[in-house]
């Protein structure tokens, strides 16, 4: 299960602040929704279901975008190191 680091605060505007490193980032609305779902402990099947209810996107494309996005979160050190999907 992916886990967002406990030191991360996310505001409604999509502003992400890592209190451990002092880094900050901006998310667009879709990114914010997905990060929130990950933070709520939802796994990939639950996330794709939620997103498909709201947006017109095929599963294959979403999966590609999702893992790209998760790779970026990992690269930016926003995911707990022992977190797995």
């Amino acid at each position: 299960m992916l886990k967002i680091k406990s030191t991360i605060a996310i505001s409604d505007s999509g502003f992400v602040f890592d209190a451990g490193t002092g880094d900050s980032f901006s998310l667009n609305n879709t990114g914010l929704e997905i990060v929130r779902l990950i933070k709520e402990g939802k796994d990939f099947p639950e996330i794709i279901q939620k997103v498909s209810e709201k947006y017109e996107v095929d599963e294959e494309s979403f999966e590609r975008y999702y893992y790209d996005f998760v790779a970026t979160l990992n690269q930016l050190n926003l995911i707990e190191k022992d977190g797995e999907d």
Partner: protein
Amino acid sequence: MEKIKVNVALSGLNNIDNPGPGIPVIRGLKESKILDVRVIGLSYENLEPGIYMHDLVDKTYKVPYPSDGFEPFLDRIRYIHEQENIQVLIPNFDSELFTVMKSEKILQDMGIRTFLPTLKQFEERHKSNLPEYGEKYGVKVPYSETITSLSDWRRIESKFEYPVVVKGKFYDAHIAYDRDQVSIFFNKIAAKWGLPIVIQEFVRGTEVNVVALGDGKGNTIGAVPMRKTYITDKGKGWGGITLQDQTMMDLTQKIISQTQWRGGMELELIRTSKNELFMIEINPRLPAWVYLAVAAGQNLPEALVLLALGKELKPFSQYEVGKMFIRYSYDMICDMKEFEEFSTRGEV
């Protein structure tokens, strides 16, 4: 509650692009709810901005450089004390700490209190002694050696891998990628700050810092960790943000408790990608970014003065995480008369 009136003399009024800690320390003192501070500035140069900042500095006196020796310094302090009744003295430059520490007893007899590290604490944390320090207190430090000439460097070069960090005894640090650059930085630093020069292993990572205050009995009165978010071409923090980092706090408390550190300090650390902390320096005084700690809820300058006055203090238990500072420059308009007065009479 009535505030405690106290006269505090301090240096570091050079609020320039490589700022001394004087003005940030004063801001903390002036915002104190416990102390009513009269600030007596001690300045080395006629153009230190603090001299002309009358909302923060009540009176400024010119003082001789520490390199002029103990006696000229003490004579000047004696004179200022006669005029101002200095109760607490806060030296804010590394280069003047030795002189003030050595004069602690004389100052005390005059009725001037300080709250500084002991000479042993001051000496053993010197950049040149860092490897021994790390070993003694169980703290990771980069490998380093002290050199006094470039032939020294050629002799020990094989112990290092490039890049290396070339550092002055008190100030300045440059990253050198080959022997030519070591030679350039060696000469540059030696010309400005003298010998010896410290060559330090380069540890890759993010620089993080802690400002802290020890009570001299092993207790950490306060500590706030920070990361610089904007660094000038001189390597100085022009912006920073407070962090939530228990490992940095634990390391600070360990160092203060093991060394029984007395006074302010700044720990300079490198956090590697493996999340290891290397200590690269201990500065034996409050740093220029100390006002960030004040804004985050720990008025360390106020606490330092209270400790100097012999008050018992309860340690700070928290600070605000994510508090930021951004420095800015500002053209202060000054009166020529004041400049004239300070230049000729040495006080204003």
